[in-house]
């Protein structure tokens, strides 16, 4: 006796059907729709242009140059047309003194502790960190400010070369991935604090930072030089090229740019932020990744959205609901019975039932 055969046959009524014919027609139909939509609507490639922002070419990426030339918009919607440069300068100081988002991120970028998301005592970031270590080490002071100045400006500007040298020899680790509190020595912290206070009384306009005299050490020279290379575009070129190879990994640029406030302001202006359902939005009115709706919804549940571990909560929910429940649905009592409670299939098969099942 042979084993039960894996193939089962339908013995009820049949109809003519050809898969290859249907498939070919389907491909033609889809190709026609996709080409027609492309001719009529194109696709989103809006660049950075946003309400109140300076225009940018289609397909542009965010750059320090755009940042420094952008206005800023405060919480009340008030526009400061020259806000970009002060925002850039404040961010540069934050990268140096370790108070920026990047410096405080923790693994996999640096050893800053206490920043990783956890539910109770469970931190997947912590577990991954103990296995892999810092896989993308960043030293915000060196990678974003000191190293670019050393490479781009110092060879041609002895004053900046001396300033960088003086800053580096005042302590503060240049090692990749050190914790935020290792980035500055006491001396550097004092200079940066004095400089930050002075910025509040001074001005940043047309590429020139003006502050009252004070004890800033080399900081004023360094920050001014960084603003200069941002405005010239040299800083962006530094980030998008590599010292040894062609660079296809511009993640440090992304980290630096996003530490400023113009970054999220552009996103908000284009409707891309999380509270604007940006997870599934595309620029303007284009459909985006609408299939991420399951992933977007949990962020809008107040208890989750406002949690410090929001991403971890959402990720966990998505794994459970979006993956496991979906995969195992045929074996989950209750869920698998929904179609019997809402018998939509009776509508779908009404013709078949009417013709073949006189009893129903």
């Amino acid at each position, binding site marked *: 006796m042979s084993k039960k055969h894996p193939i089962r046959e339908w013995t009820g009524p049949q109809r003519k059907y050809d*898969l290859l014919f249907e498939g070919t027609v389907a491909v033609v139909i889809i190709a026609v729709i996709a080409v027609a939509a492309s001719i009529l609507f194109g696709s989103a490639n809006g660049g950075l242009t946003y309400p109140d922002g300076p225009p940018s070419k289609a397909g542009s990426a965010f750059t320090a140059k755009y940042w420094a030339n952008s206005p800023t918009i405060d919480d009340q919607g008030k526009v400061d047309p020259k806000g970009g440069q002060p925002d850039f300068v404040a961010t540069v100081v934050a990268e140096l003194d370790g108070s920026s988002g990047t410096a405080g991120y923790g693994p996999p970028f640096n050893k800053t502790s206490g920043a990783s998301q956890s539910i109770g005592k469970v931190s997947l970031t912590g577990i991954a960190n103990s296995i892999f270590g810092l896989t*993308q080490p960043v030293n915000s002071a060196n990678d974003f400010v000191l190293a670019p100045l050393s490479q781009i400006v110092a060879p041609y500007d002895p004053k900046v070369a001396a300033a960088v040298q003086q800053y580096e020899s005042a302590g503060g680790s240049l090692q990749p991935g050190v914790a935020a509190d290792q980035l500055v020595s006491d001396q550097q912290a004092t200079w940066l604090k004095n400089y930050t206070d002075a910025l509040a009384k001074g001005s940043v306009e047309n590429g020139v930072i003006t502050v009252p005299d004070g004890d800033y050490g080399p900081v004023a020279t360094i920050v001014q030089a960084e603003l200069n290379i941002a405005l010239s575009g040299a800083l962006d070129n530094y980030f998008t090229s590599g010292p040894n190879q062609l660079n296809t990994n511009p993640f440090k640029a992304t980290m630096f740019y996003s530490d400023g406030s113009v970054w999220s302001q552009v996103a908000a202006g284009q409707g891309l932020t999380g509270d604007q359902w940006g997870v599934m939005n595309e620029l303007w009115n284009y459909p985006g990744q609408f299939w991420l709706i399951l992933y977007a919804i949990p962020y809008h549940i107040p208890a989750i959205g406002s949690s410090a571990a929001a991403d971890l909560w959402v990720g966990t929910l998505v794994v459970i609901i979006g993956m496991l429940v979906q995969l195992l649905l045929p074996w989950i009592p209750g869920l698998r019975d929904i*179609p019997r409670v809402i018998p939509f*299939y009776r509508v779908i098969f009404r013709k078949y039932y009417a013709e073949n099942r006189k009893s129903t």
Partner: protein
Amino acid sequence: MSSHARAHDPVTDTGDEVAFSWTEPSPWVRSRLVRNFPLRRLLPDEEPSYVSSLLYVMGVLTLAALIVVILSGVVLALGGVQWWQTSSVGGFMNSVHFWGVQLFFLFMAVHALFNFFIMAWRGGRGFTWVTGVLAFLLAIVTAFTGFLMMTNWDSQYIAQQAKDAMISMGIGFIWNVMDVGQQFTLHVVVTAGILGFIVLVHLGQVRRRGVVPPPGEEHLEVDVTTLHEAGQVGGTHA
């Protein structure tokens, strides 16, 4: 015709009971393929009469959209990694690729809902459902890497936002969504490749098991051996 007579097929050189062997696995694999995926099932002439709703076309339309996406993707790959930013032809192919993906997910969503409401997992079709969901999840990952490699502001912002989710789940230590080069290689080789494989397995399962009968009509699906023994080789007219 008895089942014993089918134990050796002179054309395929396979039969019912081929034992697995580590040193000679080919006969076992061959017999599994021939038993599970007969050509008359892969390319049928007929389908059950209830397969007559437009909703049954959603799966084929999803597949058709995938084919359009792959073809436009191949053209984009030939153009290079910034072609769509530097030429109008590249931009147009980018649009075709984009709209193909939108159609793909749209039809897939309807296809999934339809199969949920007809409980398409009945009659031993659970694995078909599982491979379908896997294809959906992999399609999400593939589309995601596509959005991350556009080399414009949009992809920069998506990457910067998504990194938090990836890192919070521990995945971000290996998969750095801000690394554009990694997204290129993942998108065109790894995720697309695995997706293609899963879709093939899904299609194979759909053809092998056949279209699920309407609820209440399950008894009309019969073990093929029974048909053989009754002299009715499978796939005959009702």
